[in-house]
């Protein structure tokens, strides 16, 4: 039968099958657009989304802000530090010139250091999240769809990685790796430290995404649309990346958006413990570490970085939750 014949047959076929319009009220809307509409309607998610965006722009535009603000993160204002090494003036030296005041002792500007710290933090967290998500997707899909011994091995590795205590491992690995490449007296370059941190996060972090993706794939692979593709002769690539992957974007996006704040706190924690970024590179963890000794005498030094990191992590988390509710309305309370 020719193609045109199929076309003409149609006229004669099934009088009752009057072309019926889809139900009104939801015309031409893709699942993505529907999720977007739901996200738009969620006030908390939208507000935290804007806050998140604000922080990201701030971090990205740090050099520009430095230019406008007129102070570099390394500049020391010793003339504004009193003899007891605390900044002069009220509340840690807050003034029109130094919006968030100055650090005790060195007298560096806290505002501009926070802006740069934001940059460090977001860079590390986003890179780590990208890397872990990519790893997690590939291993999760392969493990979930292929099953069998491959799944057995990957699942075992996941369980193994989850059982390792991250902090202890990080405390042990950092000096070992550094010692492998640099002598005890060498200055260790910042990019190297950051690289090792991202590597550490990736090593431990992919398991969450992999588990999630694996579970989703297991529930999807038995769906009849996958069977339909197989029945038409589809190969592994088509099934994994054409049929399954489009159904995984939602959980992947959610886990990515929730991984970022996790790494922000993780990075701050490592740097706080002295095994991440070190002074003079601007960083939240380092700042908070130092500010602890002045908690009584100069609380502003603790409050400013504390509030910024709190807001940052809260905004990311709330937005991630909103995203989850929008993408999967059934899972919301």
């Amino acid at each position, binding site marked *: 039968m020719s193609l045109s014949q199929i076309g003409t047959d149609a006229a004669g076929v099934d009088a*009752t099958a*009057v072309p*019926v319009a889809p*139900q*009104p*009220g939801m015309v031409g809307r893709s699942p993505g657009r529907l999720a977007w509409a739901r996200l738009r309607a969620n006030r908390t998610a939208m507000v935290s989304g804007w806050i998140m965006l604000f922080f990201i722009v701030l971090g990205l535009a740090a050099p520009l802000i430095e230019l406008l603000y007129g102070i570099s993160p390394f500049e020391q204002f010793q003339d504004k530090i009193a003899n007891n090494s605390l900044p002069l003036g009220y509340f840690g030296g807050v003034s029109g010139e130094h919006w968030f005041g100055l650090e005790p002792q060195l007298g560096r500007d806290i505002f501009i250091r926070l802006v740069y710290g934001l940059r460090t933090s977001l860079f590390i967290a986003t890179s780590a999240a990208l890397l872990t998500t990519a790893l997690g997707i590939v291993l999760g899909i392969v493990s979930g769809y292929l099953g069998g011994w491959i799944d057995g091995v990957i699942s075992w590795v996941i369980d193994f990685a989850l059982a390792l205590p991250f902090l202890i491992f990080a405390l042990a690995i950092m000096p070992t790796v550094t010692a492998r490449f640099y002598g005890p007296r060498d200055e260790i370059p910042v990019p190297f430290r950051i690289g090792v941190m991202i590597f550490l996060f990736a090593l431990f972090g992919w398991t969450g995404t992999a588990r999630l993706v694996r579970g989703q794939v297991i529930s999807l692979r038995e769906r009849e649309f996958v069977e339909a593709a197989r029945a038409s002769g589809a190969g592994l690539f088509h099934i994994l990346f054409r049929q399954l992957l489009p159904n995984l974007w939602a959980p992947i996006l959610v886990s990515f958006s929730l991984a970022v704040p996790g790494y922000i706190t993780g990075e701050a924690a490592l740097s706080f413990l002295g095994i991440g970024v070190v002074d003079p590179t601007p960083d939240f963890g380092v700042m908070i570490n130092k500010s602890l000794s002045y908690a009584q005498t100069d609380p502003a030094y603790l409050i400013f970085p504390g509030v910024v990191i709190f807001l940052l992590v809260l905004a990311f988390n709330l937005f991630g939750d909103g995203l989850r509710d929008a993408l999967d309305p059934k899972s919301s309370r």
Partner: protein
Amino acid sequence: MTHDAASPPYLQVDDLRVRFSTADGEVRAVDGVSFGLQRGRTLGIVGESGSGKSVTSLAVMGLHDPARTRITGAIKLGGRDLVGLSDGEMRKLRGRDVAMIFQDPLSALHPFYTVGRQLVEGYRTHHAGASKAQARQRALDMLDRVGIPQPDRRFSQYPHEFSGGMRQRVMIAMSLMNDPALLIADEPTTALDVTVQAQILDLLADLQREFHSAIILITHDLGVVSQVADEVLVMYGGRAVEHGTVAQVMRGPQHPYTWGLLASIPSLHGDPEVDLKPIKGNPPSLINVPSGCAFHPRCAYAMKPEPCAAQVPQLLAVQADGHRVACHLPEPQRISTYTDEIAHVGVAQ
């Protein structure tokens, strides 16, 4: 017929309306349904999915969430109006005066408790004075009564250890523990195979004779209704469109939707080479019910725009006693039409 016209019906539903507010708008799930039911009689409620059958029965059970639901009208059970009763009062009635069987017994049974424990608890809620031993004996009797072999062994098993048909029997046993005067069965056999369905329907009929309860049997299967119901209520778009005895509705259906239902089901009789006659289109959304007669977009006899698309037809009595129908077509025309419409189905006249 045990039907006693003089006594007032045990269950009397008047102008029942149930509305839900949802993000997409107000769902008019039940829109002015009235019917009465005597003890010892079975009412079959039929209609396509989404026609408001379950919502009607849940309203009688008082199982709607009051925060999201607006219920108006009257539901009189033994003379007492249930609409507006407090949760506590309703809980006292549930299980004792009115009980329910669901399509999926697994979701209605607690997975972590033995079947026996659930039966005993159901009994003791309403018989505070009953001892454990008495309740256990009652449970064993009921399990035996619904045809579960070796009740004392089954008593201490968990729901997942029962097959689908056996689970439905457990549900029936549970619903009968307190001798309810009204039993509501919502699609009780839809998930079961025909041979098991036949067993369960027989069982319900036997139990009804024995306990003299009123039964509401909800189903989308006219065949099931034709076999076990005494009366039939056909629902469409949240409204009752036809109501009568099973003989009236099966032999002399008067509503075009009922004709459509009858004509679209394949039968074991008649010429299999003749095409089925489907109802065109799809059931309506209850957020956007069509104006006038809700069936008008699918009705082959609709007189548009007046009156079918403009006025909601009332459920009015036809000549035969107790038979009511909601359609604007003049009665003589309905009567002259239905014989052709459903001739091929071959219902014995």
